[in-house]
């Protein structure tokens, strides 16, 4: 609304002052604790990041696992982004696998430029998402989930069949030896990859947070709430989704590329529907927001390692039980636990 939009000078002035008063009255008591929790969150985040940065020194053999947690977390972040619009991608393994196979295919060309390969992996994920997204974003609910599933399964079957090119079920060995032109030994490469990945996570996390706070990012949540109203505001919900889908494809591809570089091997299993469910589990376990999926990935990794170690014969039971408990009692996921607890304690006190 420009100047002529205000009813009269006097009214507009009155409105402004009352607005300010209103803000002064209502906002301060409400925002003070919010700001405090915000600060707490930021400091917690910084502590976690510092802790992560120190991990390769604290526990060198686990550098690999941390890298995988970050990689899966990145791909899970892509799934979580679509979850904000209320859509479950049951086939995000497509992008994850695409990223990995891109690295496998291009590693012989740029064996020492791992960073380039990671970006290519993300780029291919984004391109595939842009193409598939053109028609996938027209679907909602279970249809969206199942179309994603179908596409990833087609990719899976094609890879199995193209035995001569992709090695079929054997997959391909990925030989990335350096990240920025220098050949590195295996141990040094693992560490370097971890730091590059951690840096990418921070950069991508910040960029994604920007996006989530932009009108288009906010619109995703509005799609979940009431899609039709978005259309009446002159905005295409499908286009909002397409943008998010491409971003989430990039994240999936990037995550897959990191994992492939770290593992040194890709296989069609990366495309199988169970890989997709892992990404969904990671996104939901973690909860909304940019940090959630990484917590989810860490939790999932921890769980599967512990289960494999102590329950080698029935780790799926443990995993299943934990998923059920989390979605039952901590519906907002791991990252939402403080809020869930606060709400629960409030209710308890009221009673």
């Amino acid at each position, binding site marked *: *609304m*420009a100047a*002529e*939009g*205000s*009813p009269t000078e006097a*009214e*507009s002035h009155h*409105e*402004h002052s*009352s*607005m300010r008063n*209103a*803000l002064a*009255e*209502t*906002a301060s008591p*409400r*925002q003070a604790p919010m700001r405090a929790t915000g600060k707490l969150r930021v400091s917690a985040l910084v502590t976690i990041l510092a802790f992560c940065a120190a991990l390769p020194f604290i526990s060198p053999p686990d550098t690999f696992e941390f890298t995988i947690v970050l990689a899966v977390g990145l791909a899970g972040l892509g799934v979580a982004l679509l979850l904000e619009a209320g859509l479950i991608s049951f086939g995000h393994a497509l992008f994850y696998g695409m990223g990995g196979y891109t690295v496998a295919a291009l590693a012989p060309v740029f064996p020492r430029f791992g960073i380039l390969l990671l970006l290519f992996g993300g780029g291919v994920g984004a391109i595939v998402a842009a193409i598939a997204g053109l028609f996938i974003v027209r679907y909602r609910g279970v249809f969206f989930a199942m179309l994603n599933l179908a596409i990833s399964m087609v990719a899976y079957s094609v890879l199995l069949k193209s035995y001569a090119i992709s090695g079929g079920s054997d997959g391909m060995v990925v030989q990335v030896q350096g990240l920025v032109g220098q050949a590195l030994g295996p141990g040094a490469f693992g560490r370097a990859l971890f730091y590059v990945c951690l840096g990418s996570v921070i950069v991508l996390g910040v*960029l994604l947070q*920007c*996006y989530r*706070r*932009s*009108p*288009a*990012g*906010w*619109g995703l*949540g*509005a799609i*979940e*709430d*009431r899609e*039709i*109203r978005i*259309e*009446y*505001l*002159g*905005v*295409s919900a499908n286009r909002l989704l397409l*943008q998010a889908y491409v*971003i989430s494809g990039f994240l999936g591809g990037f995550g897959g590329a990191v994992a492939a570089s770290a593992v040194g091997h890709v296989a069609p299993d990366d495309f199988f529907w169970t890989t997709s469910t892992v990404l969904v589990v990671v996104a939901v376990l973690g909860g909304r927001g940019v940090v959630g999926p990484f917590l989810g990935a860490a939790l999932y990794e921890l769980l599967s390692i512990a289960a494999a170690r102590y329950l080698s014969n029935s780790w799926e039971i443990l995993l299943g039980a934990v998923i059920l408990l989390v979605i039952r009692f901590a519906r907002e996921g791991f990252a939402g636990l403080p809020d869930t607890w606060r709400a629960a304690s409030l209710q308890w006190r009221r009673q």
Partner: protein
Amino acid sequence: MKAAPALEAEHLFLSFGGVQAVRDVSLTVATGEVLAIIGQNGAGKSTFLNMCTGYLRPERGAIRIAGCSIVGLKPRAIARLGVARAFQHPQIFPQRCVIDHLRFASAAARPGFWNPFRPLNSPQSAQDVLQLLAFFALDKLADQPVRGIPEGARKLLDVAMALALEPKLILLDEPTSGVSSAEKLGLMTRLVHALRARGVSAIFVEHDMDVVARFADRVAVWVEGAIFRVGSPEDVLSDPEVKEHVL
């Protein structure tokens, strides 16, 4: 050259499963005009609005917005032509807070909407959003998620979102239902004032004849899917036949 009217509808027909919901409706809204539509429930008023916003497609007839035919266009495209709509049942986003609704609507009307690095809370629209909040007395609820606010406030928010689009034509489906009668007149006064100040044309469906008499330039009376009378509020509302059919 004379500018095309804000809305022209010519010989519209639409039926649902054998029931004629709209029969040969023709209606024109001049630029800057505020037109009220009255009629009993089921008279086809909302159906007409739905056709004008692209939700339903007329079987026959033409609709032009500022001279541009919109039959077959999607709601989104029509909104882009400057037609905003508020709903009888507020169409808002239950999990989001009040102020963000207006920020979003305001961003939707501006270039740069797709820039992922421009915050929703951009300084360009902040002032307008605050004005709108205050205008509809929603400022105290600004940070509340809308699922918790009273029905009347939801209704206002719905209208406010339509207004935030800075439309050329606004279609309001019972804008004051759900608003307490004490606030009704005050709200309409300011709303219509704002519309006139900006030269926005408007159609509003209304059941309160006081409101109609006071704010409409013209009134269209609907009976069983067709327009029964069109004219100035004084003429139409005093017509005994209208009284019989509508009141």
